[in-house]
């Protein structure tokens, strides 16, 4: 039962992405092309999403716990560091090259579009490269502390 509800939530998200235009690289890139053929549509996507999510979260997070499960899982760290800023800026550069972001590309893999499949495969490769690099630098740090 719980998984059927979660499936339906994913479906609402995927339908929202499909309607919004977020999965259309031409639209996404034009939104950020302030010096060229600017299409302001995407500000309405993020604006509407936040207008719904902010009051919704406010009400939900006042409850003692979620419907299924023992507690809310919220990111614990409050750290604003080079890794957060550098990583996010880097993500933006890649987004600007391809025109897809992860949440927009994942739902539309079911269209079978070759660009979506190429992007999604590449972005998964990127996740593993980064996880490998993060793990290795943690090991080096541990080795340096031990010696």
């Amino acid at each position: 039962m719980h998984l059927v509800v979660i499936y339906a939530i994913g479906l609402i998200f995927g339908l929202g992405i499909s309607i919004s235009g977020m999965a259309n690289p031409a639209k996404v890139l034009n939104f950020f092309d302030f010096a060229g053929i600017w299409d302001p549509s995407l500000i309405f996507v993020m604006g509407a999403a936040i207008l719904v999510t902010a009051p919704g979260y406010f009400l939900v997070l006042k409850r003692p716990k979620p419907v299924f499960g023992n507690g809310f899982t919220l990111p614990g760290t409050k750290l604003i560091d080079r890794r957060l800023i550098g990583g996010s800026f880097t993500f933006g550069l890649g987004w600007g090259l391809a025109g897809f972001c992860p949440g927009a590309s994942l739902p539309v893999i079911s269209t079978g579009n070759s660009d979506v499949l190429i992007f999604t495969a590449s972005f998964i490769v990127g996740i593993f490269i980064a996880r490998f690099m993060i793990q290795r630098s943690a090991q080096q740090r541990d080795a340096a502390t031990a010696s």
Partner: protein
Amino acid sequence: MIETEFTPLAASLGGALIGLASVLLMWVRGNVLGATGILTGFMQPSSSADWAWRAAILAGMVTGPLVYLFIAGEFPAIQVPVSKLSMIIGGVIVGIGVTYGSGCTSGHGVCGMSRLSPRSFVATLSFMAGITLMVFVTRHIFGL
């Protein structure tokens, strides 16, 4: 470059559904609806129950465009003004960036901003700066 039409109604409706899904996931299961986090945990789950809910939401996500097809009679428009090479390089860079930055447009931009997380606010400004710079450089300096 491909010119696109200004579509505020579709954008707002789509955005509202993205927001609705985010609120429902927090209400039902207590999780942030961030695509990067959900996918990363799906590929390297901490337990079988952890894998199951991620599989369910991802299965729902890919059903979205099929429902769109059923209602609208066609798949959502995907117009690509860049080369396959840009797709590959851009994709790898996105994967590295979202892993170091701990989130993407859905996690930081929608969920994090909605709970007024300063971290997500900084992350969102950073990736908006990155994409604005890249679009300016590729289109107006290199003329791609």
